């Protein structure tokens, strides 16, 4: 069951990536044809395509973390796939696809630095890890939000999203300043002085902060736990009975 569901999810993800690639490359070819008479550096142009697709593929995967929950979950339930397997395959397929696309495209794309005149060593593991962590954070957030919305079903999410927006705004505007005033040492403790450091040095300094790792891992792991809990309780009597009342 796991293998079947994994194959189903990977096919869907890579099919979308392939379609995005075709669309992107097609668009770039059209651009090249338009500017061919004005003289175009094809070496630079080719690498720009790769860099562009690197970012596009990561964005596509982030979008897929939002869109592969409800439909795939429903299709899995229809075909007798337990929700645990459904969720595990969603995690593995998305994160592994991210790593694969990154591993393929990033080494090619970093050659752009020569043409773009960037002097930073983009092959530095700090930059690589930082890039992956950023994408993983977005994917994890996407999974949590889409699972949470799916748990509530129907239009309840509109109500919940509005409530969340109001709470977040009130918190940011009124609660945060109070906390900051009450605990002034916090800001000093978290303050990192980058001074004249370049990007790599700044990332290195950031990586040295234990708080960075705590907050980063929390922002990846916590949403995944929330997503797992939401998907675990989807369509089971313990939670949905009460929550579905909102959905009506």
């Amino acid at each position: 069951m796991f293998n079947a569901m994994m194959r189903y999810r990977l096919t869907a993800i890579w099919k979308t990536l392939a379609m995005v690639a075709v669309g992107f490359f097609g668009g770039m070819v059209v651009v090249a044809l338009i500017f061919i008479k004005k003289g175009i550096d094809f070496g630079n142009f080719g690498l720009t395509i790769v860099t562009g697709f690197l970012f596009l593929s990561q964005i596509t995967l982030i979008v897929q973390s939002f869109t592969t929950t409800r439909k795939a979950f429903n299709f899995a339930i229809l075909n007798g796939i337990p929700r645990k397997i459904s969720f595990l395959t969603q995690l593995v397929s998305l994160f592994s696809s991210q790593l694969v696309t990154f591993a393929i495209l990033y080494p090619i794309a970093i050659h752009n630095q020569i043409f773009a005149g960037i002097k930073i060593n983009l092959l530095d593991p700090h930059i690589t890890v930082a890039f992956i962590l950023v994408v993983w954070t977005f994917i994890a957030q996407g999974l949590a939000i889409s699972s949470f919305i799916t748990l509530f079903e129907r239009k309840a999410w509109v109500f919940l999203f509005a409530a969340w927006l109001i709470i977040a705004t009130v918190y940011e505007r009124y609660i945060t300043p109070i906390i900051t005033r009450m605990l002034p040492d916090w800001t000093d403790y978290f303050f990192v002085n980058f001074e004249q450091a370049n990007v790599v040095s700044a990332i290195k300094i950031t990586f040295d902060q234990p708080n960075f790792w705590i907050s980063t891992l929390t922002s990846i792991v916590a949403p995944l736990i929330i997503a797992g809990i939401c998907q675990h309780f989807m369509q089971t009597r313990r939670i949905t009975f009460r929550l579905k009342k909102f959905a009506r």
Partner: protein
Amino acid sequence: MPNLQTTQLIKQFGNQIVLDDINLTLKPNTIYGLLGRNGVGKSTLLSILANHQTASLGEIKWGDTVLTGRDHPLQAIYLMSEINLFNKDDKLKTITKNTALLQGSFDHELAEEMLTAFDLSPKKKLNQLSTGYRTIFKTIVALCVPAEYVFLDEPVLGLDANYRSLLYRYILQAYESRPRTFVVATHIIEEIATLVEHVLVLNDTQLIVDDDLENVLAKSYRVSGPEELVRKYCTDLNILDSQQMGTLYTVYLYDTLPTERIIPDRLTIEHIDLQETFIKLTNKGSEAHV
């Protein structure tokens, strides 16, 4: 294959009770007809049994195991309903391929035969199909999966008479080639009377009939004649409805006729068909107490 059983099942949406105290046992290798008027909870009941929705209260058992909601025998139950759980942008062949992948096996031969018979191209996308063709396609998939309990919720929705007839033939063919349990929820009662073995009737949130078709038809009578004689003969019997047309008084019964009672010469007693029985059983204001 174990029985699928519900005990005191209740489903409530807000303050509205949709299903109340449903006690039902679905047995293997039987074709059930699930009948009920609009909005009585047929689809809700099927989706609860298939674990697409949850019950508010009550128990669902798979054999002797009480199901908690997370250990449902999902692979053994397949629900085809009007809700579309397929990706609308997918081609039909992609959907069947994905279904086969997740189900582990799939009757491709029957699927191809049915697609040809219904003039459906597998290269078409689901969103290019009309309501009727979408229903046909979903039913084709339901007949080709290896599930032991297949719930068909309105499998003839939007189908013309020719296709309905063809579809019933394929349901029977699928059943004969591999016996399994089908629960067919429909409003076209006279047509499924030749298909089903067991009848379930939902009315006003409750299951009012759960019996073999043979027994249901055997208990359904129309008694007509002079009012006095009809009333006397039908005393203490379960009367569903009564009509007066001139001097002719007609009573609809759902009961076993007492053998010891002598039938007066001027009385006419005849069986009624499933559709008429259903109408009399579920008509609001009639004297239905089964």
